[in-house]
């Protein structure tokens, strides 16, 4: 496993993404709330570009005491990214497919050294 330079951290703004190729692997690198996350860009469903779709907070539901719904809301503490092909939704923090957490995108470690961002692969 080697560290490979990806980008200057200062050029990587919060909310930005980079899709890189490293050998035969394609990796999506996200910066979310100051932290970096990197996953394989090959969707577990049918190989679509998993990291290139919408990013969206998780949708949850307010339940009243009697368990009736008081409406849906976005849970800002969570963040998902959605494969643009057929909508597989992945957890930004773990790479798990949120509808079936047994399915997980391959995760890559990101190392930041000063202003430089490296991917470990």
């Amino acid at each position, binding site marked *: 496993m080697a560290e*490979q330079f*990806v*980008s200057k951290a200062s050029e990587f703004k919060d*909310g*930005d993404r980079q899709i890189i*190729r*490293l050998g035969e692997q394609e990796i999506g690198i996200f910066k979310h709330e100051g932290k970096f996350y990197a996953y394989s860009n090959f969707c577990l469903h049918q190989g679509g570009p998993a990291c290139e779709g919408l990013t969206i907070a998780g949708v949850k539901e307010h339940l009243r005491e009697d368990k009736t719904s008081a409406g849906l809301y*976005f849970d800002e503490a969570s963040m998902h990214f959605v494969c643009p092909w057929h909508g597989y939704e992945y957890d930004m923090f773990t790479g798990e497919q949120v509808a079936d957490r047994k399915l997980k995108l391959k995760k890559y470690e990101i190392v930041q050294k000063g202003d430089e961002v490296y991917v470990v692969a």
Partner: protein
Amino acid sequence: MSSPKAAAKAAPKAARKPAPAISAEPSKSEKAAFLKAMMEGIKPGSLAAQKSAAKKEPGARLLGKVPKTKASPAPKAAAAKPARTSAKKAEGAPKVEILRKISGAAGVARTPESERAFALAKELEAALADGKLDLIQPPAMQALMGALCKVYSANEDSGNRYPILAGRAAVTGTDVMIVCGALLKAVDLQVFELGMWQSWAGR
């Protein structure tokens, strides 16, 4: 929606007999690989370009050397095998190649009025979650709704067009239908008039 497995179960037995090779359905992964290749095309720097370069140039590293211009064709049979061997021998780790940069939403400086609107929206959402439906009394709701309608439509007219709901707003289709219906009723408009206006005005 029936799953592919269920569909396969439901299919008559005859349909599952091995079909002649020419009409055989490619596997899921083959379809995905085909679609991906179609999307990518053979563009400089792509895996397809690297593979075709490796086939064309016996000495080329599969993962390193990518032709910037079209390489002159080399005899296929001679090229294929040595390229694979040289790829195995390639020294050092492959280099990072940036394929795409996707920018996040542009940060917009918020005006004090926008800040107040955000705070009010948050307060209303929180109250709703607590079951306090009457936090805003009807006259205040009417004033707010009227002002929002006018400001949004004035912006539209002046060419400052933007989606009325943020992508993240959790508003259901039912919410929208209730509000739209109530707004149309308030100004005595029928749905067909809205449709007519939209088709005339090209909206």
